[in-house]
């Protein structure tokens, strides 16, 4: 039951892009086509889940050695290495996707969603279904990371679909590009606010 609550909460209620504001750069940058957006979400999904598991275990070692202050540095290095690995693997198995993602693949390193989820999972205490606030175990952390990245993909793909339609419209000159995209995102965020209160 708790896992289901974590999943629904991470995808809809506390959507990572639209209510936590993490990973906005690629959200605005690669969302002009649905295909690219889906590819990007896939890559991010893989990196977030993997990075969270690795950094979760790494954090245990850091705590054990009493060097928690190295958390930020250690986490970002692990994430950078993982992204490099995903890049190499993707280049081999799907060159077309690799081409399509282009510059944004190495940029996953500086996607704050990845580091944000990794840090959140080891520092924040979550409360579900009236239980005690507690830190996540490995299982919960993995589910949370995966569900969060699904929420990222969902927001990204809906937004890309909206922007595809938007590009056919005649937008006032000053609003062209990012401002109109931000307004659209604002309305989308308002729609996602409808989910709040669904889970306490």
């Amino acid at each position, binding site marked *: 039951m708790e896992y289901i609550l974590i999943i629904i909460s991470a995808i809809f209620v506390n959507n990572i892009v*639209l*209510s*936590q*504001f*993490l*990973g*906005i*750069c690629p959200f*605005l940058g690669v969302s002009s086509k649905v295909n690219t957006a889906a590819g990007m979400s896939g890559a991010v999904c893989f990196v977030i889940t993997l990075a969270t598991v690795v950094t979760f275990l790494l954090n245990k070692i850091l705590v054990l050695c009493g060097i928690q*202050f*190295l*958390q*930020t*540095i250690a986490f*970002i*290095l692990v994430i*950078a290495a993982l992204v490099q690995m995903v890049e190499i693997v993707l280049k081999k198995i799907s060159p077309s996707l690799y081409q399509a993602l282009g510059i944004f693949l*190495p*940029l996953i*390193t*500086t*996607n*704050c969603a*990845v*580091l*944000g989820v990794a*840090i*959140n999972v080891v520092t*924040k205490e979550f409360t579900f279904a009236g239980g005690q606030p507690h830190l996540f175990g490995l299982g919960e952390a993995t589910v949370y990371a995966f569900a969060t990245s699904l929420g990222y993909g969902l927001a990204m793909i809906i937004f890309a679909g909206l922007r595809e339609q938007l590009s056919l419209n005649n937008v006032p000159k*000053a*609003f062209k590009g*990012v*401002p*109109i995209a*931000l*307004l659209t*995102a*604002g*309305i989308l*965020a*308002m729609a*996602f*606010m409808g989910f709040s209160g669904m889970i306490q």
Partner: protein
Amino acid sequence: MSKLNLITKGLVKENPTFVLLLGMCPTLATTTSAINGLSMGLATMFVLILSNMAISAIARLIPDKVRIPAYIVVIATFVTLLQFLMQAYVPSVYDTLGLFIPLIVVNCIILGRAEAFANKNGVVDSALDGIGIGLGFTVALTLLGLVRELLGNLSLFGWKPVQADGILAFVLAPGAFIALAYLIVVFRKLTEKK
């Protein structure tokens, strides 16, 4: 380029928020009030100036292929330093900004300046560039925080003259996107005429 020019270009011509559109996550997430926006801007500026200086000093020693990881380590070191300083001297601000302090590491403005400016220029110029871009970012965040606080809570820097409710949505997520969109449009209109 004159020294003064280095500082002023960050405010208008290369404003990181309104023109370059970098560092959107902290911009949207921490600007629920003018004070929060101001503290986030200053925290980022602190890291930006120090990392710009450090990177411009050691740029020649770093092999080209591993420069990005090296920059990230330099930036992460200064962010850890900032975390300690804030925990010690301004714990309440540290708690409010929360996750977004460690996330300064992945702020694209800082890595962007390291790559575009600091590794080609001297220490003094890089510091000035850091001050300029940092000021531009701080002003933008404070402005956005000001607008959101005013519309959402009817207060200015925490000073609330009338007891009435504002438009709550502006303090919440949707207001961030909408307020930023309109600020960018206003900024474009103002700079266009010059």
